């Protein structure tokens, strides 16, 4: 099952008419995804609160949703705006512009994996689960990836959620996060490299 949120046209029509049951279905489907996204921008401690305001804004905005962007993009844009408004109120900045990996994990990985001359110092780890299907059958691995998505640096996590989980086009990711193409590409790659390390480790050790 693809991870991206999808909404049938019939549900979208009912949402525009502000039908309570359709709204409940939207909440059921997307709350945790949007909550995770809010957490990636504003931090876990503010995310629940922000989502309350975001859901109210979503409910109010539904009759005017014109479908120029996908519903997914529209939802994430509202959540992003609510995060920005809340952070401003708290006197904090939205720090999505950073592209450096402050944790230094990437640099450590580089040092471990490459000789000084820029070549790999060993073969790639042997993967026992060699297809996406095999990896997706392993619930523990999925849980491990989920756990490590939350641990990604915030800006990497925001980009990763929009691009990999929702599979939004890069242009839309840039628009929602108000980031340049090159910044989004760097953040996405760093997130992927980090999670590839997680998969490598699991494949070799069977542990998260």
């Amino acid at each position, binding site marked *: *099952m*693809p*991870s*991206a*949120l999808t909404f049938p046209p019939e549900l979208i029509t009912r949402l525009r008419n502000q039908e*309570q049951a359709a*709204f*409940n*279905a*939207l*909440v*059921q*489907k997307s*709350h*945790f*995804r949007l909550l995770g996204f809010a957490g990636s921008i504003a931090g876990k401690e503010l995310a629940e609160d922000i989502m*309350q305001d975001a*859901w*109210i804004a979503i*409910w*109010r905005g539904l009759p005017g949703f014109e479908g120029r962007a996908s519903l997914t993009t529209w939802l994430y844009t509202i959540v992003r705006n609510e995060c920005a408004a809340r952070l401003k109120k708290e006197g904090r900045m939205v720090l999505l512009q950073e592209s450096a990996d402050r944790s230094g994990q990437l640099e450590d990985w*580089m040092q471990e*994996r*490459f000789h000084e*001359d*820029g*070549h*790999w110092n060993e*073969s*790639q780890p042997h*993967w026992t689960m*060699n*297809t*996406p299907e095999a*990896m*997706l059958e392993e619930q523990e691995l*999925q849980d491990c*990836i*989920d756990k490590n998505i939350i641990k990604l640096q915030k800006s990497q996590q925001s980009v*990763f959620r929009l691009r*990999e*989980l929702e*599979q939004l086009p*890069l242009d839309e990711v840039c628009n929602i996060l108000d980031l340049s193409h090159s910044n989004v*590409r760097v953040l*996405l*790659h760093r997130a*992927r*490299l980090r*999670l*590839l390390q997680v*998969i*490598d480790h699991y494949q070799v050790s069977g542990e998260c």
Partner: protein
Amino acid sequence: MLKCRDISLHTSDYLEKSLPANQRLAFAFHLLMCGRCRDFVRHMEKAIATFNELEPTEMSRDDAEVLGEVIVAKASDAENRKSE
């Protein structure tokens, strides 16, 4: 001449087809010559395919009903206060 380290840094751009033509050619040429980089790129491709299929966690129907109704009630409270 690209080094393996360069390949590891630009794999996403290669897979997203966002490398300029000359760099893409150099990347592909390096892959032809280097088994370790081919394995790395394959692993990255499989990892991305896995991320794209991760199952979203849904809220329970009961919890969603409660939350949905609370939100709508709050929205209409605020509307009422505004019109008073």
